[in-house]
């Protein structure tokens, strides 16, 4: 009896092949959209009005890797959330901006973060049982009148242990959240200690003695030096 393939069977076979091919290619790539929240930081607020420039490039940043196993790592939304949350815990008043404003606005300080580099590592590549994420930010700081104060390269690191039957996507997402928390921690704790910022703050509060009150002692000491006490610990 001759074997005949009807048109519908032909379409079904093609569909099956296409589906298998899609599954095969899906297995060769990792697509992560980083999701998670960063808590409000427990810190004294600098008595300043800061402008936080979160431009479209930062808001929609996606790292892609074409070599080896393809990776698409969308961290834009999560890092926008981190900078907004942590920035809000650092200053008395924060205005979120989409681009650098013209000099002479009503902000005292402008913070303009951008992503310099992202690196990811999986247990498959490193033979370690951890997923790792490195993020290198460049935090440009300007005074309210547009004068550049500092270019601070801030690197952050996060890792998460591999788990039986866990997906690369889930583990990388978790490692990215740890890295973003790390970036936030560095920002809160180290920002007032960047030499240029420290000098600017000292100068600023020397000229405005009313802000150097004891209730702000965690930020500015009596001589006008920024001093988050917990940082310089033996």
């Amino acid at each position, binding site marked *: 009896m001759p074997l005949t393939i009807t048109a519908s069977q032909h379409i079904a076979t093609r569909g099956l092949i296409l589906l298998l091919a899609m599954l095969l290619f899906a297995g060769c790539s990792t697509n992560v959209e980083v999701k998670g929240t960063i808590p*409000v930081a*427990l810190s004294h607020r600098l008595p300043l009005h800061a402008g936080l420039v979160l431009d479209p490039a930062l808001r929609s940043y996606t790292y892609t890797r074409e070599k080896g196993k393809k990776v698409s790592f969308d961290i834009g939304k999560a890092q926008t959330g981190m900078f907004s949350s942590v920035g809000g815990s650092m200053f008395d008043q924060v205005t979120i901006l989409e681009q650098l404003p013209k000099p002479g606005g009503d902000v005292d300080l402008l913070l303009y973060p951008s992503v310099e580099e992202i690196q990811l590592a999986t247990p498959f590549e490193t033979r370690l049982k951890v997923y790792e994420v490195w993020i290198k930010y460049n935090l440009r700081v300007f005074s309210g009148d547009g004068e550049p104060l500092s270019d601070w390269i801030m690197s952050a690191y996060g890792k998460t*242990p591999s788990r039986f039957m866990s997906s690369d996507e889930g583990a990388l997402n978790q490692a990215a959240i740890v890295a973003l928390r790390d970036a*936030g921690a*560095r920002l809160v704790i180290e920002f007032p200690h960047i030499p240029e910022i420290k000098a600017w703050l000292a100068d600023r509060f020397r000229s405005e003695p009313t802000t150097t009150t004891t209730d702000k002692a965690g930020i500015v000491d009596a001589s006008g030096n920024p001093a988050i006490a*917990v940082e310089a610990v*033996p």
Partner: protein
Amino acid sequence: MNSNSHSSTLKIDTRIECNGSPGRGAVPRLASAALSLLLPLLLLSGCTSTTVDEYNPNPSHLGIGTGEKVVVLGRRQAGRYETEPEFIDCIRKNLTNNPSLTVVEEDYFLDSFYPWFEPRTAPLKLGRMRYMLTEDLIAEKMQALGIRYMIWVDGNTETTDSGGSVSCALSPAGGGCFGFASWEKTSTYEAIIWDLNKLAESGRVMVDAKGESYLLAIGAPIPFIAQVQGDACKGIGNQLRGFFEDSKAARGGNTKP
């Protein structure tokens, strides 16, 4: 083995538990014949040998007052490994078996004190913790949450040895797996208790657990898994609970939030 010194105690307890059991699923008849041949081997499977080593500088039980809480935190600063969050949660659940203890969840604590207990910023020594508590914001928050004891857990579970192989095949007529594989896991953890009222170490517990798991496949795979991490959690958790037992301030409710 127990040994007492002047004011501190050092206890070492070693036990072997065999709580591994075959995984769920039907065992084919072909496999059951082979199973009887391998019975002596399987009797040895799924066993974990656990050694718990306790140091208590103050042999009396740790007091905990009304409204005072305990938090269990994992160390995450090492590059090669990190203390598993699920292990920390397992210890927390074990501690809550003591009704007089209220144990704060790790995530809740870390979020409440962000960014002071992150891998980069967490205090490694009591000296730094003491210094951190001189910061009003941290001290006030600690008081508001009622944290009296902080238990730091450092260590991990890793596969230390493996051998054998199992291969599976699928064909239009059916499929199956054949082979034998085994792997050994080792859990090593140390827990240190800090008393935040006295700003002193109140004790430490070390646990070492080792166990071998097997996977026998004759048609269907039959796993015999040693609960190494689970036994380590039980060992360290029971010992830590012992530090607080007989606490006079017995209360109801035991987990937060």
